[in-house]
Every structure is written in C-alpha cells, then in structure tokens.
C-alpha cells in the first residue's frame, strides 16, 4: 500500500541521516525523508474511486466523489519548501568543500550528523 511505502521512505531517510557522513548523501537522505512525507500526506487524502479535484466539462459539478484537495495543496507548499532547503544545503556543501577540500564530515572533524 502507498501509505506504508511513504512511511518506509521516511524511515529510510532517517537511516541515511544517521549513518552517512558524506554531505551530498546526507542531502539525498533528507530528500528521501521529505519525499516519503509527501507521499504520506497525499495518501491521507485518497478516496477510493474518487476523481481529481478539478471541475471539467466532463466532471462538471460538485456532487461527484473527489479526493481530498487539501493535502494536495499542502504538499505543494511542502515540496517548494523542500526545494528551498535543498538549494541552501547544496550551497553550504559547496562552501564546505571550498573551505576544507572534502565533502566528508568525518574528515572535517565537525560534530557528527543526525
């Protein structure tokens, strides 16, 4: 089921954050985590045999069975916010590489991740 897959992706993301020390891999883990979360959010609004919440000339009135539109709106916001943090994280990654010559946090000797 899609909902289980979402939670599994969240767990995989957390596992990646706990174990990886390469900055790019940490950012990828963070993205997997967010992706899982987004799948979960969408799945919460799913209605079996519901249609996409858009009125068209075919599905033309509000009495039909639509899936919940609110989680879809929330997920759009969450995706854009995830994009923003990812961009900033990658910019940090490049600055760190310029400063230390490596992308491995263990080699830099900073506080470990997670």
């Amino acid at each position, binding site marked *: *089921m*899609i*909902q289980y897959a979402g*939670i*599994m992706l*969240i*767990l995989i993301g*957390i*596992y990646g954050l*706990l*174990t990886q020390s390469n900055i790019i891999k940490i950012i990828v883990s963070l993205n997997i985590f967010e992706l899982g979360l987004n799948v979960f959010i969408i*799945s*919460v*609004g*799913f*209605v*079996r045999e*519901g249609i*996409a*919440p*858009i*009125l*068209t*000339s075919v*599905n*033309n*009135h*509000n*009495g039909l069975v*639509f*899936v*919940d*539109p*609110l989680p*879809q*709106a929330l997920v*759009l*916001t969450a995706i*854009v*916010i995830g*994009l*923003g*943090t990812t*961009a*900033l994280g*990658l*910019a*940090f990654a*490049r*600055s760190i590489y*310029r400063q230390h010559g490596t992308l491995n946090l263990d080699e830099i000797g900073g506080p470990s991740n*997670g």
Partner: protein
Amino acid sequence: MKRIFALVLVAVVGILLFSGIYSMEGFPRYGEAEVSERVSMSYIDKNVTRENQEVVFGVSENLETGSANIVTSIIVNYRSFDTLGEVTVLFVSALGVSLLFGSFEGRLRSRYKPNFILRTGSKVVFPLILVMGAYIFIHGHLSPGGGFPGGSMIASAILLMYLADEDFRVRIDDFKKTEGIAGAMYVLLGLVGLMISNYFLSNFLDTGTVGTLFSAGIIPVVYVLVGLKVGSELTGIITDFLKGEVE
C-alpha cells in the same frame, strides 16, 4: 557498529510509527478518507461564505472563488497566506544561495563540449518551453499546474540554454529585479484587498463563470506573478550555482 545502532533505532521508530498511527481511533484506512467530515468539503462545494448551492462547470457565476481547479482555489484563495509564505521561503533561500556565492566570478565549464545537435535543438525547443510554462501558469485555475510548475518550466528552459551553450549568460540583475517586483506586487495585491474588503489577500475581483479563462478573480493575476517570480528565482539559483571560482 554505527550502522547496527542506526538500524535498531530506525526499527524502533518504525514500530512506534506504524503502531501509533494505525492504532489511533479515527485515523482513516487508506482510501477511506471521509472528505465530508473535513474542512475540505467546503472547498469542494465553495460554501464557506455562501449558502450551499450546486457548482456546475461553465454555468455557475460569481461564486466565492471561481476556480475550476479546487486545489488552486485552496492555494490562492482559502489558504493564500501559506502561498505568500511559500514564495518567501523560495525567495529567502535564493537570497542565501546568492550571498554564499557572492564572491564567485566566471562560469563553471563542463568537461564535454556541447555537440551540434544539442546546440541547435535547444534553440528550437527553448521558445516552446517558455510558451508552455506561461500557458501552465495562466491556466492554473482551470487545469493542473499553476505558478510553481510554470515558473519551474521557464527556469528549466534557461538551464537547457546553459547546458547547450558554454558562453550563455543571463543578466542576473534583471532577473533579481523581476523577482523583487513580482514579490512586491503580490504583497501589494494583498494590501489592496485589505483596503477594499478589510481582509488581507481577499479575492476582491469579480469571479466570473467557473471554467472560463477570464474568471476566478485574482487567482490568474497571482499565478502570473508567482510564475514570474519562481521562474526568475530558480534562474537566479541556477546561475549562482554555475558561477565558477576565480583562482
């Protein structure tokens, strides 16, 4: 050792999550969400400020939000404040990226030169992608899409040009200005709403007939602004990331 510890921790978290979520009373099984018991029902029926009445595509007029796309009506009308915040998040992270790369000059170059097919083909596709992006954000209230996907498409066209032409540069200052002006216009639109109807970001224009291009009041206006803003913001981020270091 670290991995085993992490695995155990993740397993514990996983068990807690699964048992916690699915033992909650009232948590809907997958596919059995009760939309009628959520606030979403009013978004579908468009009856937050009006009497409940049937909404028919191409017939109903002057509803509280005239958007045929219900998700869009939530994003730009019912929860418009979230969208302003979302635009701000993107704005501030683009700002952060440009601050971090502020001292960089020049452009990073790929190890491989773009070939003839890529160079010529991209010039053909470029205007088509731009038009498609504009189409998507102008029709955000009628079809899937809107300001964010439309803006991303425009930025992707610019990225394609960067990949296809080693000497391609955009005038980043112009994009920053577009970004700032579009953002300021969005806030001003909200303030105009505050002056006209006493509510920030209210839909003060005529909402027209559901399903026509010129309908839904301020939604198309907002989406054009958001599309321009997102497009120029992402272009800015791409340009900043492609800046090289002067040795």
